[in-house]
């Protein structure tokens, strides 16, 4: 067991996979000489050389498309997009090509590309670098969408994604890179099929993923001091989502609060809420509540930025409301 940061866990997976399989390579803006915008690939250019750690021009559509093309001809590319905000320039490549080609070719070709991107607010990078658009990608059939929230998943999910024959999008919350966590020895493999019960409880289910897990877990601890037993679900895989675990937990607690940094309207939390209403309606003892991003472009000043994303106190308040102590 050793303590590593989220960033180091990503780098572990990059190194392990490149040593294990020569078809794996990394490309993206500043991943080589600069070591990556979030320093995930620091030192890898020296270790693996320019052919496998490739700096690209500032053209998301171009280099994501190149990654898809490389995957089509048998490579295992890892494409790093600096943030989800810039990935909009590559949406056409991801949605119209990566997600569709297996279907449109009648199964003749598959696209084993892995696209990593940072997401989320909290680092005062202003609106154009801080949004959470997981919902854009979870909307699309043909994509697998991951949201690691722990160091074990940061490493393990990247390795599992490389083993997946189809395109996988990984969201790494920018606020997590410096987070430290225990990495067991040897580091464990993880699945891409299950949500994880991060904390067991009986009174209310707090459903979250990625960057919101820490605050949600803090909220659960604070609720426990008030005698309320909150169960915390770390969804991990946003598409295809492990609905069974969600419904089983709601069947136990009869109450659900969804915590997601994306905007509430038509967002990721909207779909989770709708599914609970559709398929777990008779289990509910209270309306489903959502703690989500405020509907503004993420502001730059820190107090406004924090006011626009879910806070521990809001999660506690929502949980208290649905358990009837509000």
């Amino acid at each position, binding site marked *: 067991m050793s303590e590593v940061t989220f960033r180091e866990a990503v780098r572990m997976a990059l190194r392990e996979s490149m040593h294990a399989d020569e078809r794996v390579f990394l490309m993206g803006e500043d991943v080589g000489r600069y070591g990556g915008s979030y320093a995930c690939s620091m030192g890898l250019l020296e270790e693996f050389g320019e052919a496998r750690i490739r700096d690209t021009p500032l053209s998301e559509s171009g280099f994501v498309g190149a990654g898809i093309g490389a995957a089509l001809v048998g490579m295992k590319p890892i494409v790093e997009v600096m943030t989800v905000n810039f990935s909009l320039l590559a949406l056409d490549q991801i949605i119209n090509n990566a997600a569709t080609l297996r279907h449109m070719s009648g199964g003749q070709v598959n696209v084993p590309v892995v696209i990593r991107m940072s997401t989320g607010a909290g680092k005062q990078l202003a609106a154009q670098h801080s949004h959470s658009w997981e919902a854009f990608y979870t909307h699309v059939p043909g994509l697998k969408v991951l949201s690691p929230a722990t160091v074990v998943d940061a490493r393990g999910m990247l390795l599992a994604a490389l083993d997946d024959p189809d395109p996988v999008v990984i969201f790494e919350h920018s606020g997590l890179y410096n987070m430290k966590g225990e990495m067991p020895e040897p580091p464990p493999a993880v699945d891409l099929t299950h949500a994880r019960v991060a904390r067991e409880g009986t009174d209310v289910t707090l459903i979250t993923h990625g960057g919101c897990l820490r605050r949600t877990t803090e909220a659960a601890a604070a609720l426990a001091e008030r005698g309320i037993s909150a169960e915390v679900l770390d969804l991990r895989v946003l598409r295809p989502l492990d609905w069974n675990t969600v419904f089983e937990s709601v069947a136990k607690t*009869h109450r659900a609060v969804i915590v997601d940094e994306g905007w509430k309207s038509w967002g990721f939390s909207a779909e989770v809420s709708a599914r609970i209403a559709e398929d777990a309606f008779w289990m*509910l*003892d209270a309306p489903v509540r959502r703690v989500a991003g405020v509907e503004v472009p993420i502001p730059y000043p820190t107090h406004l930025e924090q006011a626009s994303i879910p806070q521990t106190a809001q999660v506690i308040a929502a949980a208290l409301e649905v358990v009837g102590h509000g």
Partner: protein
Amino acid sequence: MGDFVMPSLGADMERGILNEWLVKPGDAVAKGDIIAVVETDKGAIEVEVWSAGVIEELCVDEGTDTPVGTVLARIRETENPASEPSAAATATPSPPPEPVATTPAPPAPAPSAPAEARGRVMASPWARHLAAERGVALTGVTGSGPLGAVLGRDVPAAAAKTAHPKPDKVDQLAAMRRAVAKAMARSKREIPHYYLGTDVDVTGALAWLARRNASVPPPERLLPAVIWLKAVAAAIRKVPQVNGFWQDDALRLSEPIHLGFAVSLRGGGLVAPALHDVDQRTPVELMRAMTDLVTRARRGRLRGAEMTDATLTVTSMGERGVERVDGVIYPPQVAIVGLGKVVERPWVVDGEVAVRKVMHVSLAGDHRAHDGHTGGLFLNALADALSAPEAL
């Protein structure tokens, strides 16, 4: 001022539990509105009001067991020149309630929970699920949720302390059995039955039905039962003496034809709710009404008028594979028609033996009300009607 009284929802009903109010004081009601749900031996029945006006006062709390005839609510009638002063008495040809004790039970003041004061019980989905599973009536459960809503945690507590309010499923079944026993014993005790029966060739009717069903979209397709009921109504038009009630030593014929239609319930027991105006409605309308009635009967959501209005009952044992049934008349009706299973039989047609589809039809008649001659005419009329299905 009009009184809304605990109605008699069956010949042998003496008491009922006012299960749920669907109105509150100040609500305007129109003639025919469903304003309450009453729990009887045969399940929960939705009860209509037969005068128009404004609810002045609810005199009985939900959950109160009251004798038939007890005033449940007072209604301030609105001026309406078209409606006669006592609409309640003349609105339907319902048989009058059995004589009952006139002392109304004093309604026990129940602890008032805001959840039920609003007309509809506020309860979470989980509470409703638990209550249905455990047979707990949500009315009367004190809710601990917002606005007094009943939550899941309130249900086990209510189930534990429910001493009197709602009989559990076993008791309800037993109660239904007792109700059937009472009605049938009264029938056999008081009604001198005579029985007639004959086989009818229904090949043509079924062939016509198959042709018709093949030519219309699925929602307009008919089950044979619709044809049988239309034929019974047509026969009643020719021989009306079988359609009505024996009351006060006299046969009171009914102009409307409301056919009681025996529905066996999944949990056991049976009810025979009425399909109204069978002669007036098209087969497609009747089909829809029948489906609706069976569904509601099995869910225990019949309306009061449907429980009492039948002017003649039809019992069909065909689905059970039985070829012949001689029914027991449901008092105060004066006849019951029995339909057997359709079977293929050697049958003489124009001097030749042919294989035909044949159904046994029977009539049990009340000999006080009419004689075998009348019954024979009726069965002949029924056979005629079945041979010309397109006229139905």
